[in-house]
């Protein structure tokens, strides 16, 4: 089912976490709420889940107004950053919880839990307790638990935030595949732009309780609506009012039309990508991304003088 938040405002004391936010999440999509901490992304998710009550505005799930409905009656599945595993229950009982509460027949519960444990690849660990699982396994268990009640929407609050980088990458790819299989409307909250771009079909960028832009990962990267989005969805150099992506800077050994002189400060080899940090005569720092091949041709060393010019740059009209 689709989800909509309409003119939602949420305050905590004098702090405005959400300032008149409206957003529509299409049915079956995987949408990321992306923003720095304190931007209101988690609050928006919790308002949709029913765990926070907004001061004003409406939440629709499907075509129903659920604003005044408690979380337990909204049909949402939620996954928390720190797993929220029921520590005194086995993996099996954790996953079965929602169905047990609903007093479903034993055979049905058993069948469904089996199915889900298989889906999240935890079949062999049904009798373990959460403390005997790794972080990644716990989070997969939490996902199975949320999916058990066949939620109309799946809400993930920084689900991979507490995991190490390698496991995080694996789980992202796995979540993407899972979504292709189950098709449940999913919202994932993250502060990691790479994660949002990798996983989501639609990204909602939030900042200071407001929505800055809604679009596909590519739209955000190529046509950012403003400075904030431009600098949040990827690295960027700012020169005066002009914004240039590091891979849009050309580095030459000889001066050319429109190029500026700069000195090489540092060269970082990251395999295919080579990052070069430059400093211009006026003290302005620039970050350049080159391919390994380009870098090899230039044979850059620290202290060397080079000439840079942008292939492509963006200027935003003042807000």
């Amino acid at each position, binding site marked *: 089912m689709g989800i909509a938040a309409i003119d939602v405002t949420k305050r905590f004391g004098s702090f405005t976490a959400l300032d008149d936010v409206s957003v529509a999440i299409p049915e079956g999509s995987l949408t990321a709420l992306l923003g720095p901490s304190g931007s209101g992304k988690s609050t928006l998710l919790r308002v949709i889940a029913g765990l926070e009550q907004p001061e004003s505005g409406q939440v629709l799930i499907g075509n129903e107004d659920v604003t005044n409905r408690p979380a*337990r009656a909204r049909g949402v599945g939620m996954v928390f950053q720190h797993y929220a595993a029921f520590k005194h229950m086995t993996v099996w009982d954790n996953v079965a919880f929602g169905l047990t509460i609903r007093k479903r027949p034993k055979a049905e519960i058993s069948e469904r839990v089996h199915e889900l444990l298989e889906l999240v690849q935890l079949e062999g660990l049904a009798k373990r307790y959460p403390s005997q699982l790794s972080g990644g396994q716990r989070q997969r268990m*939490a996902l199975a638990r949320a999916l058990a009640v066949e939620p109309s929407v799946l809400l993930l609050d920084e689900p991979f935030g507490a995991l190490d980088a390698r496991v995080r990458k694996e789980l992202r790819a796995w979540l993407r595949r899972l979504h292709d299989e189950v098709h449940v409307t999913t919202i994932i909250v993250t502060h990691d732009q790479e994660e949002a771009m990798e996983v989501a079909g639609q990204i909602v960028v939030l900042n200071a309780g407001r929505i800055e832009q809604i679009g596909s990962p590519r739209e955000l990267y190529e046509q950012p609506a403003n400075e904030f989005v431009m600098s949040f969805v990827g690295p960027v150099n700012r020169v005066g009012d002009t914004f240039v992506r590091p891979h849009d800077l050309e580095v030459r050994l000889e001066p050319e039309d429109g190029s500026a002189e700069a000195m090489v400060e540092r060269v970082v080899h990251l395999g295919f990508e080579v990052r070069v940090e430059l400093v211009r005569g006026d003290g302005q720092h620039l970050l350049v991304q080159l391919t390994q091949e380009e870098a090899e041709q230039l044979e850059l060393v620290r202290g060397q003088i080079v000439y840079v010019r942008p292939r492509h740059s963006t200027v935003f009209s003042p807000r």
Partner: protein
Amino acid sequence: MSRYVLRFGALGYLALLLLVPVGFVFYRAFEHGVGPAWDAVTSHQAMHALELTLLMAAIAVPANTIFGVVLALALVRTRFPGRGLVNAIVDLPLALSPVVVGLALFLLYGKGGWLGGLADHGIKILFAVPGMVLATMFVSLPFVVREVVPVLREIGTEQEQAAETLGASPFQTFWKITLPAIRWAVAYGVVLTTARAIGEFGAVSVVSGRIEGRTETLPLYVQAQFEQFNVQGAYAASVVLALIAVATVVGLRLVHPREEA
């Protein structure tokens, strides 16, 4: 080397302060064999005192357990005006001398007290079981609250919220998620409450009037026998009190053998 100093230091301290005195009580109680000791504790007066003590515990412990869990939930999970004050008041019975507690109840329910009129309507509080129960509940009130509050803080609200999104009602969430998570804190609180309720002397001594065979709990009985130079009776009853204490602590260890308690 310093390890041994530490170990023997700790053990020596325990032995000197706890084991030797309690050991002497046991020794004296059974000095003339089991027979006299058994006769002393099975006397009509001693049995009545034991029954009364167990009655006090049977009322005060469940009441303070339920109240303690509810209050702990209120203190940790909600915001209400005067929370800090309530939090401080809970500790009052720990800080206040039990004799003062007894005196306070005496003034409240005694002649001329705010609730002194109850006696005129046939509701006898002082020098009777209700007053003694009140005194016992007062002094044993903080233990469950104090054990449960830090554990509730530590477990946080995420599990409860997860249960809520999975369709659990507030009652189901409490029963299936919160209570199992705090169960050992509650159990430990119950043990401390029981120990306090059974051992209470000061407050009960003031409000009971210490009427032999009527308002005499086991600790009061021990004191009375000691004053009447019936040391055999006093030691034997003390052994019963000590055994109840040991049984309570061992009981907890058996169901929850981990060290963390």
